[in-house]
């Protein structure tokens, strides 16, 4: 059993342990969850330090590290051929930073759950199950395996929002589930189609192996998703376009892009703080990861021709999300919309198809991962104390909670793209990439880069305006004296969770090479994969 397998299935062990322990020791559940997640974090840190930067991965089997490939399911289906499914995991520069990020955000999530009282057994068991699914998604290289983890992720999340959420949790939970499932059932059809179009050259069987799907030589001539001599059309649209569009649709719901984002504010507002942290910190990244790994990796020809539209969607998301954030009166909703806006940069960067843009998009995912986690945690701090997050119900918090204000200000400045913080690097690289795209003739016009810059400007507006409205001025809170007493400053536990995230934002802002060195080879490899079709 390799390191990666241990990393994926450690949380499952924790789930079983938590379920097996009697309810009388319920205080130990959080410690079990914490211990296992710490172990995972250590493991992922070890992988990070032992990672060979020169290997690219993407469509190259040799470029993957910590690879494990075991035959899992082999079904002889007669004329349909042999169903070949492997337990195939491995990481490259695209997945490694996301794995490290996931373990870190999971740690933050568990720290944020410390005060949860309601049926802790189920809560931590589900949280650990979600943890397993997330690790699996980032590590899986077999499409079937990927899909299994992808769907397994939905169930714990549904219950985490549904049981531990706010007043409208029922609606938010099912809305989230329906949106994602809608994308994924259609994705299943494309997976089946790809499976029939690809032949494993060594065994001669059809395969779910994603790396085989990335090599045009493995496609059967004339098959439904075949590369060459493919005349299949659906309602006049070539079949490879359909496949790309369906996969993009599935992942775009996760990102989320405008107009498929409407589940996000509801899910965030209703979810308990730890789940919001995980949702924003990890799950949105699955969308971006899926687009890079699956859509671009398997359909490079379409990626090269569709990137104008993708970039346009990215710009629309940036601007629409930012304008919406500006209009929100609920702090959590505002941050949810700021997520939509920031994830728009990821899409714009990916679509620019330049090395700068792609690196920036990857960097932005990492940076947004822990910054949004920190932001949602900060909202949770406020909500825990007075059960209110309405922006206009607070004023002059700086004098009541000075430490909290300092952290919020830091997190806001980091998120709005102040130089010196990680978000600046991510967004700047995306904009540089989008700007250079025209000279590289990838099909993304310059004005889209300007659209992105306006997004940064708007994000400064909504963050600073919120800061001014809530924290400065005379003390005036809705609940009066009772609230003023309830609004105690940050506790040591809360600082312990926030400090690493904000420190990381600063460290990565100053030394972006910590991430760039790991992803560079993979980004170049991906561009090499797509370049011939431009």
């Amino acid at each position, binding site marked *: 059993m390799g390191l990666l397998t241990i990393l994926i299935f450690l949380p499952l062990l924790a789930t079983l342990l938590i379920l097996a322990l009697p309810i009388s020791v319920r205080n130990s559940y959080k410690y079990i969850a914490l211990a296992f997640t710490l172990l995972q974090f250590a493991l992922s840190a070890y992988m990070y330090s032992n990672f060979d930067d020169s290997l690219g991965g993407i469509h190259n089997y040799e470029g993957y590290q910590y690879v494990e490939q075991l035959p899992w*399911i*082999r*079904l*002889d*289906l*007669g*004329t*349909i051929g042999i*169903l070949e499914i492997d337990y195939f995991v491995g990481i490259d520069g695209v997945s490694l930073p996301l794995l490290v990020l996931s373990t870190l955000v999971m740690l933050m999530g568990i720290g944020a759950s410390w005060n949860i009282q309601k*049926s802790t057994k*189920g809560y931590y068991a589900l949280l650990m199950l979600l943890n397993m699914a997330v690790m699996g998604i980032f590590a899986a290289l077999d499409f079937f395996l990927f*899909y*299994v983890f992808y*769907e*397994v992720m*939905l*169930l714990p999340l*549904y*219950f985490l929002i*549904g*049981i531990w959420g706010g007043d409208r*949790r*029922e609606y938010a*939970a*099912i809305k989230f*589930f*329906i949106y994602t*499932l*809608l994308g994924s*059932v*259609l994705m*299943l*059809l494309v997976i*089946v*189609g790809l*499976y*029939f179009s690809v032949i494993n050259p060594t065994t001669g069987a059809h395969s779910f192996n994603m790396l085989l799907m990335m090599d045009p030589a493995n496609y059967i001539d004339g*098959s*439904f998703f075949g590369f060459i001599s493919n005349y*299949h059309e*659906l309602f006049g649209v070539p079949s490879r376009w359909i496949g790309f569009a369906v996969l993009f649709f599935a992942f775009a719901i996760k990102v989320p892009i405008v107009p498929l984002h409407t589940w996000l504010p509801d899910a965030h507002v209703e979810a308990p703080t730890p789940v919001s942290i995980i949702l924003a910190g990890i799950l949105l990244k699955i969308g971006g990861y899926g687009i890079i790994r699956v859509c671009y990796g398997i359909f490079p020809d379409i990626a090269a021709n569709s990137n104008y539209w993708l970039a346009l969607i990215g710009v629309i998301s940036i601007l629409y999300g930012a304008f919406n954030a500006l209009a929100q009166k609920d702090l959590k909703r505002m941050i949810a919309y700021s997520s939509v806006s920031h994830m728009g940069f990821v899409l714009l960067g990916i679509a620019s198809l330049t090395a700068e843009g792609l690196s920036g998009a990857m960097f932005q995912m990492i940076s947004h991962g822990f910054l949004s986690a920190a932001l949602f945690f900060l909202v949770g701090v406020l909500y825990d104390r007075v059960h209110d997050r309405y922006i206009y119900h607070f004023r002059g918090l700086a004098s009541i909670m000075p430490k909290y204000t300092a952290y919020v200000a830091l997190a806001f400045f980091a998120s709005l793209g102040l130089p010196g913080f990680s978000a600046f690097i991510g967004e700047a690289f995306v904009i540089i990439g989008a700007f250079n795209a025209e000279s590289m003739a990838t099909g993304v016009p310059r004005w889209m880069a300007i659209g992105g810059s306006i997004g940064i400007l708007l994000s400064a507006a909504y963050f600073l305006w919120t800061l001014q409205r809530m924290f400065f001025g005379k003390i005036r809170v809705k609940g009066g004296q009772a609230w003023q007493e309830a609004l105690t400053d940050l506790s040591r536990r809360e600082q312990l969770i926030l400090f690493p995230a904000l420190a990381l934002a600063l460290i990565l802002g100053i030394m972006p090479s910590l991430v760039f060195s790991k992803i560079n080879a993979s980004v170049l490899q991906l561009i090499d994969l797509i370049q011939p079709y431009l």
Partner: protein
Amino acid sequence: MNVPITAILDQILASLPLFKPEFCLTAGFICAIATALFAEQRLKNVTFTVTALSLGATIYCLFLQVPISATTGFSGMWLVDKLGTYARILISTATLLIAFFIQQRHTRQQNGDIYSMLLAATLGMHVLCSTSSWLLAFIGIEMVSIASYLLVGYFSQNKAQSEAAMKYALFGSVCAAVMLYGLSLMYGLTGNLDFKSAQHLQGLMTASEPLVTLSILFVCVGIGFKLSFVPLHLWSPDVYQGSPTAITAFLSTVPKVGAIILFTRVYQAWSSTSFYFSELATWIIVVVALASMLIGNLAALRQKDVKRLMAYSSIAHTGFLMMAIFAYQDTFRYLFFYLVAYVLMNLATFIFIDHLEQRTGSTTLRSYMGLGRKLPLLFSAFTIVAVSLIGLPPTIGFIGKLMVFSAVFDSYQDGQDTSVLLLLVVGALTAVISLFFYFRIPLYAFIRKEDDFKHLQSSSAGLLLSVGYGLVFLVLLLGLFPQLLLDLLL
């Protein structure tokens, strides 16, 4: 036509070994009647024991038949092949579980007779699985139907249950009559009742189109009643709701297996030509599959009673099975796999429904409100089954769906037929619709708050519940390692 009587006798004698499993059932049936009449009062559970033994012997004999790849006996009336044998093993095993279900659940009454009816129904299903003759098929359908009418009415204690039995019997007899009329037309057109024979197919090729249409539609009415596909599904919600849960579990699973196997054979025989009747058969199956998936899933959205909900769910699954039949090529493995998945999921569901009915005295979704905290294990298992019914990984329902999608996609790639694509898309999208109603079970149990304190009855049937958990374990195990089952089917 002057075959000497000795030759006929020889042939019958030679065919007898093929009939061994059914002999076990018949013997069990007769013994069960006798013990129910004479011994049940003194020796409790003796009829159940006889039933279980005869089913066990049947399963044993069936396993001996597994190596037979395709043989006919009794002048071609009796057909033994792998698909039929596996289906009969599934049927007998499921019936054994249901006999146990009834024994656990209905302990007080003198109910020896129910087991003999159960065995009679099983025998009927065996006939359906192993024939290509319309005559035997009709006898099989009638055996299953008549036994089922009795089963539904047997425990009836109130008006709703009697109404269900009545509705079932009336609807069933009309359908049977229509089917018989269709068969007589077909015999008139072809002069042969074996739907696989060349003469039969030739007759259908040359007959006039309106007559062929009429006879095929009429025959489909009879099969459709047993399968409860749209538009012949109207009886099933009432009957499912009105019957005792153990009987509902039986009705929703076992008879469908038999009818599916028969339908598969018919469709396979008919769809292979390029004549009008083949086209018609294909159209019927595509339309029925689409309609059943859509109507089953959409109607289930509005249900408030779990048993009714499961009735619509089973209609939807029938639609999906139609899709599997449509794509059936030379291997039956995915079709059979889906059948096993369907039977496992439904049996587990009804065991849970029954247990909850015992505890709360109700089968409405509302009665599950807030029970998730009191019965966490039960509802966790129930949720896993719901996940499998939707068709999400890592459960057997997902693997079943994936294999059917694969087969259908393969036939789409060959033919590029838009209707096939429609099947695929509808099959995928109805999974999203089904999420709404299957997830109302965990929704009520875990998420909705209980508004008043409910007193739960104590329950005795712990053994049955553990069988239910065992089935859920299988649902997960075969979802992760489907090979365990598929390697058995060679």
